[in-house]
């Protein structure tokens, strides 16, 4: 393959390992299939269709690839959940509903390298024996949807999709489905409901595990855009070779989407666990803004628990880490009490008010709660209303404690993981920044009526 040149100002950092983003910002690159084929696209599909299906699944299992959507579940294991006795059609869904705040990796794949995704999907579809694939693109990515539609049409014209792909007897179609603007559609069962034309109410698990009872009650594999792209590279390198990238159990590369108070926010593809948080901030992102100090980091999309700058993390293996030493992987991040999630790293320096941050996050979750189950439907707006008052200076210190209690009442009691996504930020921010948040409250408001409605009602009663 030819050496790769990048656009001026967009050159990858030396610490990066560009694989998925190899063609992002590349000089002379466009989204056409000709460009892609000249660069070796669809070679892996050609190889895949000559392979045994199980062999591909075994390679993916051997690679240790963990889902890049947020949960970090091993992709090969997920594929293995399709009941062996299944007689129904199998569906593959690519989850391109990239809506976790702070995450912006899938859009670049779709915008700049659509054929990588098409190839990844086709290979994965072949592996799990799915003849119908859906690419669920969020409403906010109209451009990506157009590009993907065009890429799929091109691939189809070249015989990489459609009937009897490359003479293998395998049929595969990919359809683009556009969401209507709901965060919950990123939850896989919510996405499936949406795809079925219904409100995206997540399903209860059990019994509706997608690998057994998914789209149209048939086995369905739902994978993130980045995860599916990795499949192509796993096939190219071999599972064992791929597993050498990154650290054990945290293999491969992943794209970090860094935003917030750093010099150079952006996307950085690194080997999982080979770069620490400090290196991300200081090397990749060129450090904090001048004269500022680090206050907090949300390491894996807005749903991840916040990490406080002066925290120390004692790990089971005896290591003691500061926030700067945490390697950007799945397991250590979990051991430090947060999660690698979707790779959205949000850096906050000392100019940020934590009360404002938590209010901002709560408002997002209030707005995006689907409203199906009680704790999340009623709890997330409650949290937003309390934090609204805190920011407005209309809250007492007790309200801060109650904010945490409301979050506790949501966590673990909902149908889907949205409950945790909504409550973890509040729980972690209040626990770690309680004093700061309380400092903007007023003690004399304790036990007082603070909302307009009740004030009116009481005034009415007195009159």
């Amino acid at each position, binding site marked *: 393959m030819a050496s790769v040149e990048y656009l001026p100002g967009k050159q990858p950092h030396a610490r990066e390992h560009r694989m998925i983003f190899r063609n992002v910002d590349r000089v002379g690159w466009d989204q056409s299939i000709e460009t892609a084929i000249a660069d070796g696209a669809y070679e892996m599909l050609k190889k895949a269709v000559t392979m045994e299906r199980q062999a591909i699944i075994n390679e993916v299992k051997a690679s240790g690839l963990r889902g890049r959507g947020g949960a970090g579940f091993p992709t090969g294991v997920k594929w293995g959940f399709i009941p062996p006795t299944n007689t129904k059609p199998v569906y593959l869904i690519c989850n391109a509903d990239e809506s976790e705040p702070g995450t912006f990796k899938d859009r670049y794949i779709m915008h700049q390298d659509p054929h990588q995704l098409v190839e990844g999907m086709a290979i994965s579809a072949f592996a799990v024996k799915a003849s119908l694939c859906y690419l669920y693109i969020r409403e906010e990515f109209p451009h990506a949807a157009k590009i993907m539609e065009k890429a799929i049409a091109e691939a189809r014209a070249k015989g990489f999709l459609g009937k009897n792909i490359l003479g293998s007897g395998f049929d595969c179609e990919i359809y683009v489905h556009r969401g209507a603007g*709901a965060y919950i559609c990123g939850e896989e069962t919510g996405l499936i409901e949406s795809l079925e034309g219904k*409100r995206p*109410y997540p399903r*209860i698990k*059990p*019994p509706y595990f997608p690998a057994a009872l998914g789209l149209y009650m048939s086995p369905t594999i739902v994978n993130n855009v980045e995860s599916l792209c990795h499949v192509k590279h796993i096939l190219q390198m071999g599972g064992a070779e791929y597993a050498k990238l990154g650290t054990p159990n945290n293999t491969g590369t992943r794209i970090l989407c860094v935003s917030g108070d750093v010099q150079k926010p952006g996307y950085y593809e690194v080997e999982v666990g080979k770069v620490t948080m400090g290196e991300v901030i200081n090397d990749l992102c060129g450090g904090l803004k001048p004269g500022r100090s680090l206050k907090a980091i949300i390491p894996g999309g807005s749903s991840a628990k916040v990490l406080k700058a002066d925290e120390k993390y004692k790990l089971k293996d005896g290591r003691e880490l500061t926030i700067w030493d945490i390697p950007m992987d799945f397991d250590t991040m979990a051991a430090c009490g947060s999660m690698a999630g979707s790779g959205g790293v949000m850096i906050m320096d000392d100019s940020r008010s934590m009360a404002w941050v938590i209010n901002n996050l709560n408002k997002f979750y*209030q*707005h*995006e*709660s*689907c*409203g*199906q*189950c*009680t*704790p999340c*439907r*009623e*709890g*997330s*707006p*409650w949290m937003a*209303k*309390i934090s609204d*008052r805190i920011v407005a200076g209309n809250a007492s210190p007790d*309200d801060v404690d*109650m904010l945490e209690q409301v979050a506790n*009442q*949501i966590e*673990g*009691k*909902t*149908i889907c993981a949205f409950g945790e996504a909504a409550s973890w930020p509040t729980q972690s921010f209040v626990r770690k920044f309680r004093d700061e948040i309380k400092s903007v409250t007023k003690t004399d408001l304790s036990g007082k*009526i*603070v*909302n*307009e*409605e*009740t004030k009116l009602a009481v005034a009415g009663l007195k009159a």
Partner: protein
Amino acid sequence: MSEASSAPAAKPPVDMVNVQINGTWHQFPKGTRMIEACKQVKAEVPHYCYHPKLSSPGNCRMCLVEMGMPPRPAPGTEPEKDEHGFAKIGWMPRPVIACANTVSEGMGIRTEGKLTEECRRGVMEFLLANHPLDCPICDQAGECRLQEFSVEHGQGESRFREDKTKKPKNVDIGPRIRLDDERCIMCSRCIRFCDEIADDPVLGFTERGTHTTVTIHPDKRLENNYSLNTVDICPVGALTSNDFRFQQRVWFMKETNSICTKCGRGCNTEISARSDTLYRQTPRENNDVNSTWMCDQGRLDFHFVNSEFRLTDPMVKTGGKHAIASWKKAIRTAADALRGLNGEEIAIIASARMTNEELYMVKQLAAATKAKFLDVIPRNGGGDNYLRSDELNPNTNGVKQILGIEPGAQLDTIQRAVRSGLVKGVIALGENLVKCGFDTESLGKLTVLVSAHILANPTAEASHVVLPVNSYAEKRGSMINVTGRLQRLNKAISSPGQARDTWEVLRDLVLEISGSNGLHSVDDVFKRLAAEVKCFEGLTLSRIGDLGVQVLETTETVPLLEREKERKAKGVIVG
């Protein structure tokens, strides 16, 4: 289900599993939902969205319980056992919903304890956060799950200090139903009922999050014949019946188990009344008849009981005018007039809306008067693919069994004989003859027209003797429905004025015409039926019970029940 707490851990029989509930071991069939297993051992789990006849979305989260399974032992080791010999349970840190999960071998469930209580208190607090708390003006008060579970699992004071979410109120969603969205807890029972049972998916959610609102789809109305069932299953006061709205506080009403007499199905009902006024009828569960549903037509067909047109006194016509008479005089007048005719001149038009006991007395009356003509008015039509039967009389099977006649077989002959003057005396029991092909003119020419009615009507007006009788809500008795099930009516309210039970009136008439017959109560009549009619053999009125007894083999099936059976077999519903 059987208790196995003291017995050592034995391998359960095929298809049974050992489950520990609140520390005690029990056995349940495989596939039993956790919530039902708990219910069977009196560890009731509170719930809103779960309904055994509907799919389980698990959205209310009220039924969260603590659950555990025996941990998988390390290879080569035996699992640790408890004192009963069962593998020790590893309790999950997170609660699970009891409604949609099924029991499995070795499972432990705790419906009490810190975690479960915290969950319930939390869900209750959330449900009430944006609830208008307008119980004083809410029809559901007194039978509201929010109130009940708030008392049991909630807290006395609200911590919610914010403005509440505003939603539409008093929404007209159908001719019989009104919706208050602020009271709604989004359990989706009504939506699922319309989708799954009534095949009329007109309800749905709109908006999202805290603004989620149940609503009617554009240009649709909730007007199917089963719409009021949504009011029954609404756990709160969001859906209320226009008919019952603001009529009565539920705690003042007395409930009586009865059956609906609108068609041949005989849906089991609960009649709610306060001081001799009926306020509503609601379906009562009977999985051999109506599941837990009934049609709106049947449900609302009770207002005539409280009607101002009720006949309250026996009347005898003298000089072309009705005058109130004593029962004794009315019966004697009727008997005397009938005795003056010979059997060939007498026709009895009874009704397939009469109870078995009444029909038995009709038979006695026919014998006493030697009436040549006897028939009932057949009614058909309006059957649907759910519960409504095409047979509109509630006791046609009783007529066939007791009177041994085919409804309507003689009707033409009788009408002709009345017109020609061959028949001089007619006894009309519960049927308005004018509406059944008899003309007022020829009825006017009769020497004797005795009639027993609930409401004033042209036939009563034409009658020489009018006998006021009780409606279905004022009497005991039994009927056989279209599927051959013997079911019981019960007395919910007392008779208006001097009105009496039809069987009693007929007994007196027979007595007056022919002498003693030894019948003192409706139970005595049933005893005679049991002795004389095969299908009643070995039964008494009380032995029929609240759910009825299958007494006839019929080929008739209930479409709605058949579909429920299918869904139950698939595990979609509990049934």
